[in-house]
């Protein structure tokens, strides 16, 4: 740049790839992004109503943490999202775009509800619960392994395949509901049989279950041979082949695991949370789970934080909606979307940095 003989202009700002970044910087970037996202969405909420900015944050916190029951619900939903993320995590580490989390949860839930519906009152509850567990894990695994087989054998696009499986799962659920509910109302009344027993309170068991799964998944991905194979396949399929890893086998095996955990989430939804099913039972966790997993850059322990954060926002937004008197619940989608945007852009600032043009005109003159 010292000689401007080519008359080349240095751009005002250019992008340079970062070599390494400190952990503190990463955390700082994320915190700033979350604050920006929340501020932006609070401003939007304020714009559309007569309330003030402080009301937004006040009701965000009371909505999520306002009472003991709310805290338990927050923890329970965090646990469910955590479970879903654990289901999606091994697939994503393998760069298998499993967008079918919703469907896998739903069929797991459906299988469990079917056990409750047909066996309820005829067999002992403990046997029903055991059958539910087996059925939902199997159903989730089957739902996930079908796209995996085709991906492994024919390289079929897995993201669209799994996406379509969501809709088929929804179709199966509404089909079963029309068969089961004779009145034609389309709503299945909660089934009193096969409910998972309370330990202390009804929220505790799922929370413990999914925390245990998270720890196991952490160990599985970090310290087992399978986990190593998954990360090699994710980095480069060719490398995996040269190392002697059977890529097909890894893809199918990992998706069975992934679907099984999603089925387990369905089991908890059926046996402990809802005791019934609708097409919306998966609560879109298949997609929010992707967000939680990706935001945590595939680290199981950080996923605990991200899924807590996402659940916190969506729970808090329910209260915000009430205080701000928005008549429909879509405002929470807008806010969640904006916060996602803010956090997704973080990946740019972590991988790249902006270099501004320095004032060098004086130098040239010298």
């Amino acid at each position: 740049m010292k000689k401007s003989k080519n008359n080349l202009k240095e751009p005002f700002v250019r992008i340079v790839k970062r070599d390494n970044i400190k952990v503190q910087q990463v955390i700082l970037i994320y915190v700033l992004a979350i604050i920006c996202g929340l501020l932006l969405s609070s401003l939007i909420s304020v714009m559309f109503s007569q309330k003030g900015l402080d009301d937004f944050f006040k009701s965000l916190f009371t909505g999520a943490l306002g009472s003991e029951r709310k805290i338990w619900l927050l923890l329970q939903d965090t646990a469910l999202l955590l479970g879903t993320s654990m289901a999606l995590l091994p697939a994503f580490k393998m760069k298998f775009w499993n967008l079918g989390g919703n469907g896998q949860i739903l069929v797991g839930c459906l299988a469990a509800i079917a056990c409750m519906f047909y066996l309820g009152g005829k067999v002992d509850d403990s046997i029903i619960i055991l059958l539910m567990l087996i059925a939902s894990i199997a159903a989730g695994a089957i739902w996930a392994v079908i796209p995996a087989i085709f991906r492994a054998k024919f390289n079929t696009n897995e993201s669209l395949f799994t996406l379509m499986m969501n809709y088929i799962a929804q179709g199966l659920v509404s089909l079963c509901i029309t068969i089961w509910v004779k009145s034609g109302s389309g709503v299945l009344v909660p089934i009193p049989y096969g409910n998972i027993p309370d330990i202390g309170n009804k929220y505790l068991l799922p929370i413990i279950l999914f925390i245990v799964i998270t720890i196991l998944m952490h160990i599985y991905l970090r310290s087992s041979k399978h986990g190593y194979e998954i990360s090699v396949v994710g980095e480069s399929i060719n490398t995996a082949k040269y190392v002697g890893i059977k890529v097909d086998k890894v893809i199918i095996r990992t998706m069975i695991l992934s679907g099984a955990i999603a089925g387990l989430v369905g089991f908890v939804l059926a046996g402990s949370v809802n005791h019934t099913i609708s097409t919306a039972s998966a609560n879109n966790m298949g997609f929010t789970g992707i967000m939680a997993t990706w935001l945590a850059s595939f680290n199981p322990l950080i996923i605990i934080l991200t899924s807590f954060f996402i659940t916190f926002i969506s729970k808090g937004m329910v209260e915000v909606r009430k205080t701000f008197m928005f008549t429909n619940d879509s405002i929470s989608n807008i806010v969640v979307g904006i916060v996602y945007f803010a956090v997704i852009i973080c990946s740019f600032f972590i991988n790249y940095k902006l270099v501004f043009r320095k004032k060098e005109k004086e130098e040239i003159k010298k």
Partner: protein
Amino acid sequence: MTVTFLISAIAIGTVLLFGCIGETITEKAGHLNLGIPGIMCTGTVGGCLFVSLYMNSLEVVENASWIMLILSSLFGAFLFASLTGGIYAVMTITFRCNQNITGLAITIFGNGLTQFLMHSYVDKSNFSTAGKIISKCLPFAENSDGIVKVLFGHGFYVYLAIIIALITTFIFNRTKVGLNLRAIGENTATADAMGVNITLYKYVAILLGSGIAGFGGVFYIMDYVKGSWENASTIEAFGWLAIALVIFTLWKPNISIIGSYLFGALYIAAFAFGNISFTGREVLKMLPYVITIIVLIITSMMNKKENQPPAALGLSYFREDR
């Protein structure tokens, strides 16, 4: 019976066709835009908003002119959809964010925004009148029957979709712009070395593609269901089908005309047969998704070179990378 079935099939097909063309254009530029469902939603609300503004500016709503309604709905849909697409473009092109994640976030955001605005800020009172005017077909086809009705008995949007599909095919295959665009999608670094302005092409492709996709939603609300509004999730489902349709039609907009009508027929098959049981209807509703999967499998098994997705699909481009 057959005539009404075909007409509805073409109408639903048109919704999918708009989404499919839009997604094809962005995918040709190497961007897998999973935000299309959300973008179709915001296009809907944009179009509806401008139609309601126009209708409210009139003293007698029945005098609303056809051309103004078409223009205002097109403009609104294009504006809102390409603005939403613009968020996606900035995030994935300039900030090089992961395309799948960004797309999913766009869909969540777009769905929410649409639901919110449609519910509280769009005046829907004159929509049935506006819908009747927008869906007007050529005068000779109005009272006709049979094949004439099927071919000419649609509103303007149906033909617009076909025209856009044909123009897009022409641009892709016969012009330098199309060649450059395809080069970007196949190998961005090579296109860059050729001297193509990568960023400009990508931005234009995504904004244009999103805008076109936005027409789909407003067509569905204004023309097909004549202005009634239930929720955004129907349009979101159309968006996902449109993305699947891109693969089904092998990234070729001219094939997608036929493909989308076929999908449209499958989609309404569940409602077309009046004498079917409830359970049978639920089974039929799953059909389009099952067919999509079968098509996905077949195209992947054929494994022909010209039927593959753009090679650089889903990859962010940074010039200084190796």
